[in-house]
């Protein structure tokens, strides 16, 4: 159980694909113009990651070392193509919005990196969980980025939701005469906001470190002074 917890924690925070490993940045930045796009792509990514990790973990015994990369890529590409076809068939509007970024999940470094670093060495259950958690780690970041960019950029949230659920519609979060800050929607804004997110993570990490250090170096001191001699 502990191992699973660690896998989850790695995926969600410690080894977070984006914030810690700086992988999978392209879809992250390109598709996070609003929350709905972001989450959609995130879900597609999770799906691919789980399937890929599962498949490769299952097949790892049959893959010789020299051609492991082509084979991994072959498998991932096949999975991505299937997801792509599904999007085209069932979420056509979204398919048009996400454009080449669905096929590009293939090259999302994080998929291949995980497959190579984890699934190729671990069991089925752990690998699938790793795929899931890495994916969730990706999706929360891209969703956060999407939400922030959408709010700052145009003052709305969930705009474009009708592409997925035709009955719903986005909400205007800021006053209607909010002029919008276009930069947030454009590439520069994506970089800026991601930079701030990373700095935020650094800040949290350093605070955690500090707390740990305090625990290590102060608590014993405190207990010594308070404990009876």
């Amino acid at each position, binding site marked *: 159980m502990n191992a699973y917890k660690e896998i989850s924690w790695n995926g969600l925070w410690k080894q977070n694909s984006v914030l810690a490993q700086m992988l999978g940045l392209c879809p992250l930045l390109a598709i996070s113009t609003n929350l709905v796009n972001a989450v959609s792509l995130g879900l597609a990514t999770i799906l691919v990651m789980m399937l890929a990790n599962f498949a490769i973990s299952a097949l790892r*015994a*049959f*893959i*010789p070392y*020299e*051609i492991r990369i*082509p*084979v991994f890529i*072959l*498998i991932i590409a*096949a999975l991505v*193509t*299937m997801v792509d*076809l*599904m999007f*085209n*068939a*069932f979420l*056509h*509007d979204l*398919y*048009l919005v996400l454009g080449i970024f669905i096929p590009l999940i293939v090259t999302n470094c994080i998929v291949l990196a995980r497959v190579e670093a984890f699934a190729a060495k671990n069991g089925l259950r752990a690998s699938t969980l790793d795929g899931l958690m890495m994916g969730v780690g990706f999706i929360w970041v891209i969703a956060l980025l999407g939400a922030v960019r959408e709010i700052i950029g145009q003052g709305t949230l969930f705009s474009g939701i009708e592409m997925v659920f035709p009955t719903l519609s986005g909400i205007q979060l800021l006053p209607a005469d909010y*002029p*919008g800050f*276009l930069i947030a*929607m454009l590439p520069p804004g994506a970089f800026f906001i991601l930079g701030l997110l990373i700095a935020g993570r650094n800040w949290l990490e350093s605070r955690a470190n500090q707390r740990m250090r305090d625990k290590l170096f102060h608590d014993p001191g405190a207990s010594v002074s308070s404990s009876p001699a």
Partner: protein
Amino acid sequence: MSEPIEVAPRESSVLRISARTAGIMLIFALVFTALMAGTYRATAPYVAASALAEKLRLIGEVLPQELYDNDLTADALILPPQDMLGLDEETRIWRARKLGAPVALVLEAAAADGYSGRIGLIMAVGSDGKLIALRVTSHKETPGLGDYINLKKDRNKTRPWITQFNNLGFDTVAQKSWRVKKDGGHFDQMSGATISARAVTNASGRALAWTLERSDRLFTLPANSRYTEEGKPQ
């Protein structure tokens, strides 16, 4: 499968290794291609349906469903690239009829002189010579400034800019007034972003004129045939 793996690479010849890897690649390729092909087969009808729906939705924006009763996709002309319409690739003209009588032509056009390049348009021209409605299908105008030509992006929700073309024809607005006010014409523009408005207005005027000149022929050519200019050989 497991047998070749046990062969230590040092002992095997280059050829054998090549053959072995090729074999494994082959198997993986076959299995996964089969999977993909299966998915493709399974989703193909849905994909086609989605594409069709997309087209119909676009048409629906300029031409209300109630106005016609024929199957537009079956009653279309193939239109080769047309300079007058600003089109540099093959498009289609859909012909709407009600009870067999011509109702409207739906066609695409483009303005090449937008602020940031091409603006794609779709429009429905009624058999009475009026422009039923006009929409922008694609553009690269500056977000927040020139993008009001897109109905969805227009901040004026009560009377979006693009709707002022609804149901106008050269009878109500003379062809030489089919311009933005800034150029001495009939149509409003958004101050500070005249270029986009001018491009759309001028392109729509040209397209309307083009259509009206040959509207009869457009309605009468056989379905799914290729449109050619009169007098020119096929």
